[in-house]
């Protein structure tokens, strides 16, 4: 699906660059023009933002379904997209996204889709899969690491990184870090979940 989207996007990019050069020939500053456009778009949609998990994307119907709110208040909202929508490739089922939209008649049209990125708490650094793989190859004892799968237990059972321990977020919240983590506080702890959600 991603490949298809990319193909669709290339002509767009090409068109856009033609338009920009066209503007310059007409004696206008393309940069100013672009800045003005962006500014007006931002102003218009400032209040209209959905953050949540994308639960469906249809390229045929050009719609994105996004789940917003938590618990009982969670609801699914459908937003349309079109050729002007930026970053549609970031709308992928099961991943968190931030959608800026504007209301046109009864429709909500996405202006821009951005991936929702996790913020690292203070004192925590990010590691890449390659780094974790290096430790996993050494094994828990030699590597002296403690790998924690923070997802719900069911997901852990279905398929996880070798040598990991299942500690779902509600468990560590309820029982406290000291009760579920190793005694040695200098041991390397690595947490992961189902990707940036």
């Amino acid at each position, binding site marked *: 699906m991603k490949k298809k989207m990319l193909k669709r996007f290339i002509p767009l990019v090409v068109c856009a660059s033609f338009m920009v050069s066209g503007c310059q020939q007409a004696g206008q500053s393309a940069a100013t023009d672009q800045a003005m456009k962006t500014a007006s778009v931002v102003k218009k949609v400032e209040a209209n933002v959905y953050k949540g998990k994308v*639960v*469906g994307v*249809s390229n*045929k*119907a*050009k*719609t994105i*379904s996004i789940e917003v709110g938590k618990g009982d208040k969670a*609801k*699914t909202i*459908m937003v*349309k997209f079109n050729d002007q929508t930026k970053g549609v490739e970031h709308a992928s089922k099961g991943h968190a996204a931030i959608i800026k939209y504007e209301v046109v*008649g*009864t*429709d909500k049209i996405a202006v821009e889709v951005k991936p929702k990125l*996790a*913020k*690292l*708490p*203070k*004192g*925590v*650094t*990010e*590691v*890449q*899969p*390659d*780094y*974790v793989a290096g430790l996993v190859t050494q094994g828990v004892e030699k590597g002296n690491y403690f790998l*924690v*799968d*923070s997802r719900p237990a069911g*997901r852990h*059972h*279905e*398929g*996880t*990184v*070798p040598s990991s321990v299942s500690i779902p*977020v509600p468990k*560590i*919240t309820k029982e*406290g*870090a*000291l009760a579920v*983590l190793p005694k040695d*506080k*200098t*041991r*390397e*702890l*690595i*947490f*992961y*979940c*189902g*990707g*940036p*959600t």
Partner: protein
Amino acid sequence: MSTKSAGLAVKAGYTNVKVMLKGVPGWKKSGRHVVASTKHVKDGNIVLVDLRQSSAYEQGHIPRAYNVPFVDMEDLEDDLPSRKSAPVVFYGTGAEKAYKYVSKLGYKKTSVYQQGLDGWVAQGNTLATGAAPEEITWKRILGKGEVTVATFNKVADGESGSVILDVRTKDEVGSGMFANAIHVPLDEIQAKMSQVPKDKKVIVHCTTGARAEMAYKELKAAGFDAYYLVADIECEEGECEVADE
């Protein structure tokens, strides 16, 4: 999420705390396999594949396992369920290579039972003996709001009290629709909701089930008695049918 747990660890005094932000999807994308637990192998709705030679399989294998010897791995392309959501679990020598092969075929929920036969037995589980089943039979468990093909066909045949809602595009509908169906493309569902009956069960379909599920959620939120079908739909010369799995 993992960052929250990591934050709690730092607060509790741990000094070497890291997060693999890319998570399991990033791990898989980097070309590495994931492992399944013994519980999943025992209770999960999975396609368990023993990769050893038939003679070894017949002497003792994990109950429910199919047998596709590693040398015949490429047969899996034809043998596995057509649905790519089928969770395939491998054990035996070559499991990691088989995982890669099957993942490339598009099976996204594939895993390796790394503990294998020895781990299974060591945890006090019994083995089964005898010849392997001739073919893989696996049935997907229906999701919330999903109907079976049989239920859908009954409504398509005119069962009263229910109606089919076709959410495909106008172009797609040009090659045919089910009897007893109304048509509202997914992108017009909000504007045209009044065309959907509120006093009947509404069963939504598209061509695969993806758009149907999205429409189902919209309808459900608006108070409709809605359901949806996940299946391939083929239409030709005005006639539609649900393709066999």
